[in-house]
């Protein structure tokens, strides 16, 4: 998405949509008792643990908390670097 497109999109968001998005994010963390900072720390620990066995590319790891009803689900996507032969 270009910067211009992003600005236009940003412009169209009403304050209530912004409120809803912010609420959804904050509640995911409230409900799981995992702050964004702790989530980052957890991500580093998991990458380090997995990295002991296989090679992972830390830059491409995505890590997120998602809602599943009223419970939160931790979703990690950890691409492995193919082994050089």
């Amino acid at each position, binding site marked *: 998405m270009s910067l211009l497109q992003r600005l236009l999109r940003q412009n169209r968001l*009403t304050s*209530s*949509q912004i*409120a*809803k998005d912010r609420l*959804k994010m904050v*509640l995911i963390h409230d*409900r799981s008792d995992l702050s964004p900072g702790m989530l980052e720390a957890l991500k580093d620990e998991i990458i380090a643990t997995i990295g002991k066995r296989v090679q992972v590319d830390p830059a491409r790891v995505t890590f997120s908390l998602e809602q599943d009803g*009223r419970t939160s689900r931790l979703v990690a996507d950890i691409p492995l670097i193919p082994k050089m032969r």
Partner: protein
Amino acid sequence: MQGFTGGDSQGFCHMSARVITITSGKGGVGKTTATANIAAALAQLGNQVVAIDADVGLRNLDLVMGLENRIVYDLVDVIEGRCRLRQAMIRDKRTDGLYLLPAAQTRDKTAVSPSDMVLVCDELRPSFDYILIDSPAGIERGFRNAIAPADEVIIVSNAEVSSVRDADRIIGLLQADEKGAPRLIVNRIKPDMVAAGDMLAIGDVLDVLMIELIGTVPEDDQVIVSTNRGFPVVLENHSLAGEAFRNIARRIRGEEVPFLSLQQNRGLRGWLKKLRGGGK
């Protein structure tokens, strides 16, 4: 404990009240207003109702119900044995079947324990159809006292980020307490702001909290006027908030009542929005 039953049943009654606690997390969202109005509406529908003010130290339900001049004893007097329960109950002379059990004003929440509340409610249950408990804000002792005897919980929120977040915290605590699913009142809705995209719509709040809605109440100047007078707004016929609270009372009784449409596009901004095709 006969005598609360309006005389017609001569103490011969088989009632067993449902205890419903009205709480919120965040302060000032309308718990006391909702308690006073739903209690009056349930009594108007022919039920025996007692409203208990569990906000010990910051009592207000008496004032909102217009019964502040008739208090002799209070909840803490009952608990500490200075009077019998029926002596502390105030009968609302304007509405048949409506009673108030006031909170103490000069004590704090630690004067009451959750088990005290359970005992008081158990003593009241046989004589009433509904016991409504006005919870204090917060998640500490006062909240614990208020929910201890509850069969059902109603959470009040405004359509605004902080009160929705706090409502979510309450929902989590109730889940941990195995209290059964609470229901939600969204209070002080401004339809014009919702239409203009500047206030969370009911659907947004429900999407986020994922609980059942029991009512929506618009922002209504009549609430303030009626609170000034100590005369619940449900007793007036021509107010939107009054109608909303009456509908909530009927839903509590198990009636199917359609939700008031508060979200139609109204006013100039709503109209402009419709022109732009942005209305939902």
